C-alpha cells in the first residue's frame, strides 16, 4: 500500500482540476442565480455572456501584449479584466434597457423572458463569433506552472508527481477574492441588503421604497463581472472557443439548481458539487487504486465509471436527481 503516491495522484488528477473547475462553475452559477433571484428568470444567455466578456478581455490582452505590458509570472489577461468587465456591463445594461425592461413592465410570464434570453443568447453568440471567429484562442502568458510535476517529484522523492498550473492557482485565488467581496457586498452594504430584500419579497421591497431599477442595474453589473471573470479563468485554464461556453450552460444551471436557485451560497456549493462529481465519475481510478490495494487485487481495466465524453451527462444526472427529490435545492432557493 503506497498511500503517499495514491494521495499525490489523487490530488493531481482529481482534486486540483476539480477545484479549479468548481471555482469557475461557481462564479458562473453565481451569475445565473443572481439573475434568477432578482430578475426571476433563467438566463440562457449566461454562457454566451461569459464568452463575450472573455472575448473583450482577450482583445484587451492582445493590445496590452502588443505594447509590451506584462504582469510578470501572472497572466496579462488579469490586467485586461477591468476592460472586459466594463464593456460586458455596458452590453448587459443595454440589453436590459432595450429588451428585458419592456417585459418586466408588462409583468410577462417567466417563460417569455426565458425565450427572449434565448434570442439574446444567439445575438451575443453571433457577435462573439463575428469578432473573434470560432477557432481556439490561447491568450495565456506568464509562468505556466507554479510548480511542475518534475519539481514536485524531486522535492518529495515520490514516484508520482503533482503539478499546479498558474491558471489553476489564479482561478482559486481569484474566486476566493470575488466570492468574499460579493458576500461582503450582499451582507454589509445598504445596496446589497436591498438586493436581498428585493429577491426575497419584491412587493414589500417596493413598499419600503427600494428602487427596482437601481437594484436591476446593480445586478447586471455584478453579473457582468462574475461572467467575465469566470469566462476568463475558464479560458486561461482550458482555452477559448465560443462554442464551449454554450456547453457550460448545463453544468452552470445544474450547479445553480442543486444549490437552490436564487441562493448565492448554494450556487457556490453547487458549482463544486457538479465539478467534483464530473471529475470523480469520469476519472480512470486504476492508478490510484493500484497504489491502495495489494498487487494481486490491482485492477486491470481503467475503472472509469463514464468516459470523459459523457461529462455533460453527469451534470444532467445531478440535475434530474435534484429535480426528483429536492426541487428547491440544497439551500432552499425559490422553486415557484
Amino acid at each position: 500500500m503506497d498511500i503517499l503516491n495514491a494521495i499525490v495522484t489523487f490530488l493531481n488528477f482529481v482534486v486540483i482540476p476539480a477545484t479549479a473547475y468548481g471555482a469557475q462553475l461557481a462564479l458562473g452559477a453565481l451569475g445565473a442565480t443572481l439573475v434568477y433571484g432578482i430578475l426571476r428568470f433563467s438566463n440562457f444567455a449566461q454562457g454566451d455572456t461569459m464568452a463575450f466578456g472573455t472575448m473583450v478581455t482577450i482583445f484587451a490582452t492582445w493590445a496590452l501584449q502588443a505594447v509590451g505590458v506584462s504582469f510578470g509570472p501572472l497572466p496579462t489577461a488579469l490586467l485586461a479584466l477591468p476592460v472586459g468587465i466594463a464593456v460586458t456591463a455596458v452590453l448587459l445594461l443595454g440589453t436590459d434597457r432595450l429588451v428585458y425592461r419592456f417585459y418586466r413592465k408588462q409583468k410577462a410570464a417567466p417563460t417569455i423572458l426565458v425565450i427572449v434570453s434565448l434570442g439574446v443568447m444567439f445575438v451575443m453568440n453571433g457577435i462573439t463569433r463575428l469578432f473573434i471567429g470560432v477557432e481556439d484562442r490561447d491568450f495565456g502568458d506568464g509562468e505556466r506552472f507554479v510548480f511542475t510535476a518534475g519539481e514536485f517529484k524531486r522535492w518529495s522523492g515520490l514516484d508520482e508527481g503533482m503539478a499546479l498550473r498558474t491558471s489553476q492557482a489564479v482561478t482559486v485565488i481569484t474566486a476566493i477574492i470575488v466570492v468574499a467581496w460579493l458576500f461582503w457586498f450582499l451582507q454589509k452594504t445598504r445596496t446589497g441588503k436591498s438586493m436581498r430584500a428585493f429577491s426575497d419579497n419584491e412587493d414589500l421591497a417596493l413598499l419600503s421604497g427600494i428602487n427596482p431599477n437601481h437594484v436591476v442595474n446593480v445586478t447586471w453589473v455584478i453579473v457582468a463581472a462574475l461572467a467575465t471573470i469566470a469566462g476568463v479563468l475558464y479560458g486561461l485554464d482550458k482555452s477559448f472557443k465560443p462554442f464551449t461556453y454554450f456547453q457550460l450552460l448545463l453544468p452552470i444551471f445544474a450547479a445553480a439548481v442543486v444549490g437552490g436557485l436564487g441562493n448565492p451560497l448554494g450556487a457556490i456549493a453547487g458549482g463544486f458539487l457538479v465539478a467534483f462529481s464530473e471529475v470523480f465519475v469520469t476519472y480512470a481510478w486504476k492508478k490510484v487504486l493500484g497504489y491502495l490495494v495489494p498487487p494481486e487485487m490491482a485492477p486491470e481495466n481503467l475503472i472509469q465509471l463514464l468516459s470523459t465524453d459523457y461529462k455533460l451527462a453527469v451534470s444532467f444526472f445531478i440535475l434530474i436527481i435534484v429535480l426528483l427529490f429536492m426541487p428547491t435545492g440544497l439551500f432552499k432557493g425559490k422553486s415557484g
Partner: protein
Amino acid sequence: MNKRNLLLFGMVAALYVATGVFQSWNLAFNILNLGLLSAIMALGVNMQWGYAGLFNTGIMGFAALGGLAVVLTSSAPVPEGWAAGGWGIMAGLAFGVVVIVAGTQIYQRMAKGRARNLALFVVLVGGFFAYRAIFDPAVSAVESFNPATAGNMGGLGLPSILAWPLGGFLAALAAWAVGKICLGLRSDYLAIATLGIAEIIIIVLKNEDWLARGVKNIIDLPRPWPVPYEVNLQKSAAFLDWAARYGFDPVTASSILVKLLYILVFGIVLAVVVWMSELALKSPWGRMMRSIRDNEVAAEAMGKDVTRRHLQVFVIGSAVVGFAGAMMTSMDGQLTPGTYNPLRFTFLIWVMVIVGGSGNNWGAVLGGLLIGWLWLIVESLGPGVMSLVTTGMGDGWLRDHLIESAPHMRLLSLGVILLLVLRFSPRGLIPEK
C-alpha cells in the same frame, strides 16, 4: 383561411418560385423540402407552446432520435456484429431498465428511512456495476467487428418509411421520461432539462459506435419508397424517353423529379399533421388545453389534472418532431451526429414558431416555410451579397473576415428578428384565433 393569410402564403410561394427562376429549381426544391420538414417540426413545437405554454429547448435531440430510428430500421444488417454482441447489448439495456424500475419501486413502496436508503444504494450501485459487466463486453465485441465499415449492431434492413413512426415513438419515449420528471415544476426547469437531454442524446449517438457508428457516420441509408435514385432514373429507358420528349437534360431532370417526389411525400405528411392538429385544436380536448394554459390556477381548482395534460401534449409534440427528424435522415440518406447542432434545430424552429404565429397551426407552417427559406438562401447567397456590399473596401483582412462571417451574420440576424418579433409583434404573422 382568410384573405390575409392566403396573401402571406402566396408571398412565401413567390419567394420559392423566384429562387427557382433566378437561381435553380434544384435549389428551390431542396429548400422547399427542408422547409416542409421544418414546418412539421414547428407544428410539433407549436403544439407544446401554443396549447400548453411549454418551452422545449431540446428539439435537436428529438430530431436525432428520429434519425436513429431510420438507422435502426432500414440500414443494412450486420449479422456478424449482431451475433458477436447484439443480444448481450439488448440484455444489458433490459437489465438497466429493470434496475431503474426496481429502484423506483423501492423508493415508492418502502417507508422513508435508513433501510430504504440502504436498499436503494445496493440496488442502484450494484445494478450499475452488474449492468456494466453485461454491457461492456458485448459492446466491445460488436465494435471490434470490422470497425472500418461497420462496428455497429446493424439495422433491420426494412423499408425506410417504417422508420418514421418508430422515430416518433423513440422521441415520445424520451419526452415522456423528461416530462414525468420536470412537468409540474417551474417552467424554467423543463427548458433546462430539455437542453440537457438533447445534448445527452447527441453525445450518446457520437460515442456509442455499436449503436450508429458514432462519428464514423452511417451512410447508404436506403431511399424511402416511393422515391427512386437518380442514377436508376437515368438508366431507365422510360425516363430517358420522357426527358427527351420534353427537352430536359436527364441528369437535372432526374434530380428534380426526385426532389418533387420528396415534396409530395413530405407535403402529404404535413397536410395530415396540420389536419390532425386543427381537429385537435377545435376539439373539446383542445379547448380544455387552452383553457388550462390561460388560467392554470382556475383549471386546477376545477379538478383538471394539469400536469397530466401537459405531459400528453409534450409527448405528442415531441413525437411529431421525431417523425420529421426521421424523414429528414431518410432524405439525407445518412446519419451524421455532428450535424445536429442547437442552432440549426432548436433555435431555428423556435424562430419559425414565434415569427409564424405561436398558437396557430397555419402560422407554424408559414413560419417554417418562410424562415427555412431565409436560412438556406442566406447560406447560398450570403457570401455573394457580402462581397457585393464590401466591393468598396480594398481587399484585405477585414473584407475577407466579413465575407467569411456570413454564417455568423445569419445567426445574429435571426436572433435580432426573434427579439424584434417578440417585442413588437409577439403574436406573429398569423396570430392565434
